[in-house]
């Protein structure tokens, strides 16, 4: 039996199709509109937004550097880059979580970048102390609540979610979600492991339903009256104010509370980028990250996502005016989020927060 025939077939497939396949979304456009590409840039991105494709294209148009991108889950990008080793085509790594950026750095997959421009534009606490990665847009994990059932004072701290008077009122998404892991990563350092775990247990005791759905789902659950409070990233709420009729109807029944305004401030995380350790196009990579910190980059990075630009004076995306005009945000060494991630998951697991 020619059993090996199928293996051979597989290899043929591979030869035909196995070459790096994450071509630019519009390869023809890249090939034709830029008559003479002066360079090439391979982006590994853990974000999935249509606006990013627009962003790459604008960068191409302005610089003549052709962008090829791969979008995938952060963990998979990490595994892929480890596997590719020295031969990795990756130039720039983009992730929407500082903890993940730290893991790339920790795995030796990034290299330090000295950039005047970035150093001046990006506040210090939003970038890696060793300059391996730079934050570019920020987000806040805040409390969303039903004003008909809950007073604002009842939910002005994360600790309030664990309060006995919210029993049966709390909706949460799964603890495996990076936003919840990231928050716990900060709480571990702020409160200590034991207190953080006690908090998680009390929150679990307050659950109106087992963890499920995404951030939007939590807002909808509050609007539908299933629960009264939840944790969400601010931008999900903002996006819903500009969403479908049903979404607008839901979101207008809820309000946001920015926690810890009298103490350390609301939990912040960033979308950031770094240069790959073996970047074949290091110059272009730095150019790209600097461009992202520029006026146009900041706008394109946040206009669809409703994240908050990090560079002072950058144009705010539409709809952010629904947030309070000023609020206190937590200043916290973001690499800790990555270091604490496994511990955070362990705490949630022990607390029974699925």
């Amino acid at each position: 039996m020619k059993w090996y025939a199928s293996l051979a077939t597989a290899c043929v497939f591979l030869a035909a199709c196995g070459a790096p396949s994450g071509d630019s979304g519009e390869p023809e456009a890249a090939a034709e509109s830029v008559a003479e590409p002066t360079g090439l840039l391979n982006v590994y991105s853990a974000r999935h937004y249509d606006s990013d494709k627009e962003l790459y294209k604008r960068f191409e148009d302005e610089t003549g550097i052709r962008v090829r991108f791969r979008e995938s889950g952060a963990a998979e990008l990490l595994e892929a880059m480890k596997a590719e080793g020295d031969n990795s085509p990756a130039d720039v790594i983009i992730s929407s979580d500082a903890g993940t950026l730290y893991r790339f750095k920790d795995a030796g997959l990034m290299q330090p970048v000295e950039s005047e421009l970035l150093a001046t534009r990006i506040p210090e606490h939003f970038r890696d102390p060793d300059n391996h990665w730079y934050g570019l847009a920020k987000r806040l994990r805040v409390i969303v609540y039903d004003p008909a059932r809950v007073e604002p004072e009842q939910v002005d701290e994360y600790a309030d979610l664990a309060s006995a008077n919210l029993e049966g009122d709390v909706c949460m998404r799964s603890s495996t979600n990076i936003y919840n892991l990231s928050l716990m990563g900060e709480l571990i350092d702020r409160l200590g492991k034991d207190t953080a775990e006690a908090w998680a247990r009390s929150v679990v005791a307050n659950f109106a339903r087992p963890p499920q759905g995404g951030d939007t789902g939590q807002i909808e659950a509050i609007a539908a009256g299933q629960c009264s409070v939840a944790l969400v990233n601010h931008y999900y709420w903002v996006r819903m104010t500009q969403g479908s009729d049903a979404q607008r109807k839901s979101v207008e029944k809820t309000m946001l509370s920015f926690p810890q305004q009298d103490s350390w401030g609301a939990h912040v995380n960033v979308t950031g980028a770094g240069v790959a350790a073996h970047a074949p196009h290091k110059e272009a990579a730095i150019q790209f990250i600097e461009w992202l910190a520029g006026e146009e980059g900041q706008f394109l990075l946040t206009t669809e996502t409703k994240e908050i630009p990090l560079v002072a004076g950058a144009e705010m995306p539409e709809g952010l005016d629904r947030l309070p005009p000023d609020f206190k945000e937590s200043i916290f060494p973001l690499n800790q989020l990555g270091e604490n991630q496994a511990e955070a998951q362990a705490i949630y697991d022990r607390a029974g927060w699925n």
Partner: protein
Amino acid sequence: MSALAAIRRFRFRSIDGPALLAGLIIAVPVVVTLFAGLMNGGGEAWTHIRDTLLTGYTTGTLGTLLLTALMTLAVAVPAAWLVTMYQFPGRGLFEWLLILPLAAPGYVLAYAYADLMGLMGPFQTAIRDVTGWTARDYWFPDMRSLPGLAFVLTCALYPYVYLTARAAFVSQSVCALEAARSLGASSARRFWQVALPAARPAIAAGLALTLMEAAADYGAAEFLGVPTLTFGIVRAWQSFGEPAAAARLALVLVVIVIALILTERHTRGRAGSQQSSTRWRSVSRARLPRWAGLGAMAACALLFLTTFVLPMSRLVWLVMESQDQIAPIGRALVNTLILAGSGAALAFVLAMVIALTARQSGLIAGFARLMASTGYAIPGAVLALGALLVMGYLDITLTGAGAIVALAWVYASRFTTSGAEPMVAALGRAPASMGYAAESLGASPLRRAVSVDLPVALSGAMAGALILFVESLKELPATLMLRPFNWDTLSVRANAYATDERLAAAALPSLLITLAGLLPVILLSWRLSHSRPGDTQ
């Protein structure tokens, strides 16, 4: 013949080489996983999983299996009885329509049902709009729960039991039922005390299949947020990056699967199974009285609507309604064709070897068959883990050719049996004496296989190839774990969009998967309706 005697009499024959190779290829992933699970400590991650999550995973899996089993039996057996024994409006149509849900994998139904029955789905929204209540003022079944998962899996998998029960009822000795009548047994007693016990081994076999598939499910459990062992395996590998811990979990899952198989064997017990009657007579279906007939029709219609029409319409509606949110899937389609195609190609060759050696009894052929059916019982996540471990030992990365070969290997390891089945059936239709004739003419077993059996088996090959391709295409957890970087398939995309809460985007690949899944199901129902002994209707 005792195993020992078989070993003593064993001679290596020309046909044994390919069979041995096929058996080994199929066996390696599961053997490696089990070995790793037994030998490695499992690391720190395992300690954590064991102390905090293992109980939840295990009860999740067992609870899901139990509930799925109960619901499947409650639905599938009466449905099979109804369409086999009674005449009512639409019976002929429902007889095969009720198989169609087999086309949609559990995760696809999970997406559709979570959306339909969710807080913002049409039903709950309507309740709140009409009554002015809030979600706290009424009870509504929660799909994102263990019963919800069992419901979804029942919808997707009940046809296995429906098929085997129906086959048992059709082929049961009609005479036994008539004998029971002549002994004064009422129709209820005939069902409970004659037909059902006689069909029990067949029903148990169908149920075992259902539960193996349920235990293998990853997508639905993950999406509905029910912690199960399969979910735990993927997670242990994905978020803890700890294959050894995942292998430990796999061990628990394999123990459960083996328990399932043993239970199924046990139900056969000493009591004889179906005596195949030598004389066929069409089941003279009792015509149900008007209202009972309409009731039977309504019950079948309800079953079909619930398990197939309703969820699929929701997906179609999602695609139509929110076209702007639909992501392009051309690339995923190509990836799917290549990956599932490679898997199907490898599995096809192995299935052919299994099918050809199935007729030549022997130790090695038996080993190959056993390995193939073992592979089918083992969840894809476990096999994928085995492949990952092998790749780890060999230092092959998940980026290039290695990953495609590994994935094709896992597909083959899991699905070869299902592809071999139609070929074995085709061979079964040719008289065994044909093979003996060839051997008496001096043909070696290998030559007999190639020149006599192969052409016969090819008539079943189309069906086998189709089944292999579609099964590979529907597979989710192994594909998720093993696909080469940037090689998202339809199932992976559907899963990614769904977990991203972009259901409209998930709907299109989900529908395509279901559409592909319909092909072998329709083939199956066609074969079914054309090979029914003695039934002229």
